[in-house]
């Protein structure tokens, strides 16, 4: 079997292994979806996505194709090969249990069964735990499908952009080394919706080709190309 597809409902969490050169497409199943994602090198989770390194090397405060997602060791963990959106947030974190309860009121399994409201932090830590990881392994996450726009003013004021993603929006990642991916579909903490109605997402895993010599990520910036080269050296 090379490839499969699963649906993750809104407000849930998931973790999966993604082998080198497999692609993972996230596809939204409703409006205002958010996927908070953490990424680790499968063979050594001490190596992980480093958002500041990723952003500063590629001179961008947001994630878009054909950037690579870089580890703290300079390797490309994944390339963003395609997306219906040109902006995915990576600088505003994810929801915490206390904030979700403050905003939407108390919720529990006893009262709400499987519709109980679990924060992104709860889901991410639960999935991390299953892989022997914990709170100290949290790193700055990407928020796929969310745009937080900078005003360009003196303070660097940020504002959530409503309606940025709608049903059917997608983003595709190509693993450049073997990965552990941990994600949550809880709402973004700055999303202004009054009710807790998080959209789900479909995960499509497929076999893909290795990046060719003329791959768009390799030709994006010299820094992006070097991150791919460092990833390739691990398998040389």
């Amino acid at each position: 079997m090379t490839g499969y597809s699963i649906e993750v409902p809104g407000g849930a969490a998931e973790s999966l292994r993604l082998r080198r050169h497999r692609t993972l497409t996230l596809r939204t199943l409703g409006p205002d979806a958010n996927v908070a994602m953490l990424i680790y090198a499968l063979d050594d989770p001490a190596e992980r996505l480093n958002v500041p390194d990723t952003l500063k090397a590629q001179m961008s405060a947001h994630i878009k194709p054909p950037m690579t997602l870089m580890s703290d060791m300079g390797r490309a963990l994944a390339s963003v090969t395609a997306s219906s959106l040109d902006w995915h947030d990576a600088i505003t974190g994810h929801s915490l249990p206390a904030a979700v309860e403050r905003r939407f009121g108390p919720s529990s399994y006893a009262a709400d069964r499987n519709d109980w409201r679990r924060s992104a932090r709860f889901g991410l830590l639960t999935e991390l735990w299953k892989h022997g990881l914990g709170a100290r392994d949290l790193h700055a996450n990407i928020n796929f499908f969310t745009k937080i726009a900078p005003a360009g003013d003196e303070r660097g004021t940020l504002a959530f952009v409503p309606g940025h993603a709608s049903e059917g929006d997608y983003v595709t990642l190509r693993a450049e080394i073997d990965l552990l991916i941990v994600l949550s579909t809880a709402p973004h903490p700055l999303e202004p919706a009054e009710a807790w109605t998080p959209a789900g997402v479909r995960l499509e895993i497929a076999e893909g080709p290795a990046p060719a010599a003329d791959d768009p990520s390799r030709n994006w910036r010299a820094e992006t190309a070097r991150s791919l080269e460092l990833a390739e050296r691990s398998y040389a």
Partner: protein
Amino acid sequence: MSDEFVLDDIVEAGDGWIGEIPAGTLLRITDLHGNQAVDTLFYDALDYANRYSAMDTIREQGAVYLTTGSVLMTVNCDPLATIVADTCGRHDTLGGACSQESNVVRYGRHTRHQHSCRTTFVRKAKEWGRGLEKRDIAHNINFFMNVPVTEDGGLTFEDGVSAPGKYVELRAERDLLMLVSNCPQLNNPCNGYDPTAIRITGRRP
């Protein structure tokens, strides 16, 4: 308010500092010669997992840059410190710390063995011990560093907004562990291409 320093250290370019700062301390970092990036991490002194989080801090204040009034938050949104004075104007917390590996990506293989902030973090963390590991080195603050975020989502490193004698002062909101790397980066304007010494002072109000 006492003006007596309980802490007064000079940190040379490329060197680091690690130590505990008691709650209530007024902590001042002074850019002695101007245009110097000071890569800084804070931890709850009683629980290192409850550490500074750039992204939680940015989200909670709804703005990218740190300045007077900014509350530095942990991953659990507990306040670590508040910036109470700032003669520089703004500070970065998106740019992270330079490392040997990120230097290779950004500038090429010839920079692989140049000194970097993460090397200083490793050295000082090992010196401190007490269970600090690589995974405890999260995304830091860059005091005095200018990393403008544009409306179209661009990110650049520009010449410092700082100048000789500019300082930032923080009030510790709990007992802290502070880890500092006085940035040795030579390949971009963050230190004005000439890393210089800083002064760290602390006093009890």
